[in-house]
């Protein structure tokens, strides 16, 4: 069998730009014995991906590696190109981060699995017919129907694509599987299925698993040992339960705390962060009975190739003043469509009723523009929501110019940026999006919405693409906006922990319908609907290797 070990590994990217050489990994020693499972956790930029890519010599030529990376006792630098090719996939394989981008969009997925088998033809799959059988066998192993073999990637869901990636990784019976954020883009239920599947395969076949993620809870669900990385250095290493539940280093504590424990009274209405947003009012706003935005019997249908599909079915929803309402559901449950129709961006079916402050939603362009002043939306991806060529000032001022608000332009921009806790605001005005971090970009997007003084903020997965520590900051900002300005917010998320952290009420959506709707404390502590219970059970919890033991 094969074991993988890193001994005093340092990796440097040589760069001709002004940044000079960048050390991505410094002095890391880790061992992955045969049949073991190891998780590496760290935020973006911690060097975890660089480290695992070095195991198969997949780094670009501009990198220098010091120390030894040993695979099955051999230093991988001593292997010839032919030998390293034989090692890749046959001994160690990788499940890449974005399944969407790692599959060839113009080939059937079955053929892509066979491709790996062709490159490493062994006795068991010498002939094309045998390779075909092996491919079907693999699909079965990852719980996919054989008919999926002739599908193209775009015809599969995110979870199914990730399963295809895992089937590919298993194809040549490797000894080691390296998984790079295998579940990041997936919702909790699919994430649970994928993790369970991986844990089962690892357990049954004695495969070693090296998994990296920014999510401590996901790692602790599958891995025996955990390593925490920060700025390219190893911060803490030890058995999973110990690292998660009794961390020694401050940084590990911070990472472990960043994840909400549903039911934990301390994190209710209190997202953990080192930089909480300030509550300035002596008597912060509280949720009231005054209804701001209301939907009655809201339905939305799309014409698809399969016929008319109802994305949202008869939803009743009421958002009160100074209320934070979380709409929770899996991807494809119609949450985003619901949000877009609340904003008048989406045509709704006849019979649906949408009211803002007691009057029906306008349909004419001019009235809609005035309405948009009151109800603003924050889109999923902060990097994409900002025009890369325009500065922070231009991004924030855009809404004012569109709405033809001309007085005190500068003061309004500064005020909005400060309300979004981007201080000192004047320092950021000239920056363009690429000069900002993910969290800062999200603050700029929020400031752009706040500049219009809206009464309602609708946010679509506002923290899904952000690191754990930034997540807490942004959530605490939402809470502060409610308390300081009395703003109502409707937050769309697949993360029940987010609801526990900041929301007053929660609506659970499944296939376009709201299956459970009520006070967060009640719904999350005592879920009535089976689907809510399933969602809650799928949330990974720190420590205990829950999935492995149950699976």
């Amino acid at each position: 069998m094969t074991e993988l070990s890193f001994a005093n590994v340092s990796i440097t990217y040589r760069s001709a730009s002004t940044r000079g050489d960048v050390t991505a990994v410094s002095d890391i020693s880790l061992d992955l014995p045969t049949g073991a499972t190891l998780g590496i956790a760290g935020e973006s930029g911690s060097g975890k991906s660089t480290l695992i890519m070095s195991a198969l010599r997949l780094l670009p030529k501009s990198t220098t590696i010091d120390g030894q990376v040993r695979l099955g006792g051999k230093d991988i630098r001593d292997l010839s190109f032919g030998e390293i090719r034989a090692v890749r996939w046959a001994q160690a394989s990788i499940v890449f981060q974005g399944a969407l981008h790692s599959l060839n969009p113009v080939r059937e997925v079955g053929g892509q699995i066979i491709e790996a088998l062709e490159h490493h033809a062994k006795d068991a799959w010498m002939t094309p017919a045998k390779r075909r059988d092996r491919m079907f066998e693999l699909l079965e192993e990852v719980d996919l129907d054989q008919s999926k073999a002739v599908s193209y990637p775009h015809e599969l869901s995110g979870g199914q694509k990730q399963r295809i990636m895992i089937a590919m990784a298993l194809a040549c019976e490797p000894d080691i599987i390296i998984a790079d954020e295998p579940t990041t883009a997936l919702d909790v239920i699919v994430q649970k299925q994928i993790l369970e599947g991986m844990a089962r395969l690892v357990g049954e076949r004695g495969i070693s698993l090296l998994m990296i993620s920014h999510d401590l809870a996901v790692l602790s669900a599958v891995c025996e040992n955990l390593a925490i990385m920060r700025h390219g250095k190893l911060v803490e290493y030890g058995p999973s339960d110990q690292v998660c539940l009794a961390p020694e280093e401050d940084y590990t504590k911070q990472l472990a705390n960043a994840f909400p424990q549903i039911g934990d009274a301390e994190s209710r209405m209190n997202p953990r962060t080192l930089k909480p947003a300030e509550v300035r009012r002596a008597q912060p706003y509280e949720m009231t009975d005054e209804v701001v935005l209301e939907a009655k019997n809201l339905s939305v249908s799309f014409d698809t190739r399969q016929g008319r599909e109802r994305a949202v079915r008869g939803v009743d929803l009421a958002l009160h003043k100074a209320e934070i309402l979380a709409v929770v559901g899996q991807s494809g449950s119609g949450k985003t469509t619901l949000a877009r129709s609340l904003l008048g961006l989406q045509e709704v079916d006849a019979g649906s009723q949408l009211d803002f402050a007691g009057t029906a939603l306008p349909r004419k362009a001019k009235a809609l523009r005035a309405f948009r002043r009151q109800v603003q939306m924050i889109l999923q991806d902060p990097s994409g929501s900002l025009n890369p060529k325009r500065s922070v000032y231009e991004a924030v001022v855009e809404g004012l110019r569109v709405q033809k608000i001309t007085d005190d332009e500068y003061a309004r921009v500064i005020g909005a940026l400060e309300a979004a806790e981007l201080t000192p605001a004047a320092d950021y005005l000239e920056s363009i999006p690429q000069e900002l971090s993910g969290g800062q970009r999200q603050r700029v997007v929020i400031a752009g919405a706040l500049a219009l003084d809206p009464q309602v903020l609708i946010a679509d997965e506002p923290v899904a693409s952000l690191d754990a520590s930034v997540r807490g900051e942004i959530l605490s900002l939402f809470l502060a906006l409610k308390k300081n300005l009395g703003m109502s917010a409707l937050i769309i998320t697949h993360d029940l922990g987010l609801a526990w952290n900041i929301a007053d009420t929660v609506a659970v959506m499944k296939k376009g319908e709201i299956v459970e709707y009520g006070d967060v404390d009640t719904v999350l502590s005592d879920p009535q609907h089976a689907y809510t219970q399933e969602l809650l059970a799928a949330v990974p919890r720190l420590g205990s290797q829950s999935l492995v033991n149950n699976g």
Partner: protein
Amino acid sequence: MSNTNPSASTPSGSAAEANARVIDGTRLVRDRRLNNVKKNWSLFRSDIAAMLGAIVLVFFILIAIFAPLIAPASMLDVTQQLDVPRYAPPSLAHPLGTDDLGRELWVRILWGARVSILVGVAATVMSMVIGTVMGLAAGHFSGLFGAVVMRIIDFFIVLPSLLLAIVLSSVLERGVFTIVVAIGLTSWASTARIVRSQTLSVESRLYIERARILGAGHRHILFKHMLPAVMPLVLANTTLTVGSAIIAESTLSFLGLGDTSKESWGTILKNSMDISAATSGYWWYVLTPGIAIVLVVLAFTMVGRALEAIINPALRNR
């Protein structure tokens, strides 16, 4: 009274401050853009081929502008060249040789540059404006309107452009303006296609959706987001198109469809062919206008390529 004065002056003071700040906001934006221009200029300067091209262009534009000063129009008058030898090969007395009527070729090139470059630039501007407007419209508006615009673009793409230009210039009144219209009307379709594809890709970005959420209408999205996004592409395309427009002008003049009363490089080529200069050994008669065309077209292309690389850094080192 002494109390009211300071309190009265405070708000006016802060108002003045706020005013100064209002200017600040827009100035910040302007400064940043100016800096970008400076950065791009230094990138452009570091490209040797582009600088060579720019120098050649500036040279030809200068001689075109100052042609009447350098060589008075009388030097083109055949009746005043009776003492000049015909078909004189290049020498010190006749730097680029003379033609069948005893005119100096360098004077004809000088005057020809005026029409050739003017027509090239004007036709390109026309084609770019039509192409950008049609491309933006086809990309931004979905549904029937966009589809109709797209079919119009397709119609112009499939038409053989030289043929259309020949028809147009023979139907319309002879003149420089006719040539500009003929070339401009036939060369915009490919620009429209490029602009449309860029528009489509920008259209799907989240920041367009964000602008809609902020309440923006078509005008805001088209002029604040789309136009700036396609402009660099259009500019780079412009310099490349000027070259082909100059060639098109020469082609039309060569075929005798240009303004015969005005000098142009194409006209010189046509005259040289009329007297079979190439087979009679009067090589300078053919080569001089030919090389002038090649130089200017090459210069525009080199500048255009450098601009393209500045807009799209991935093209560098290719």
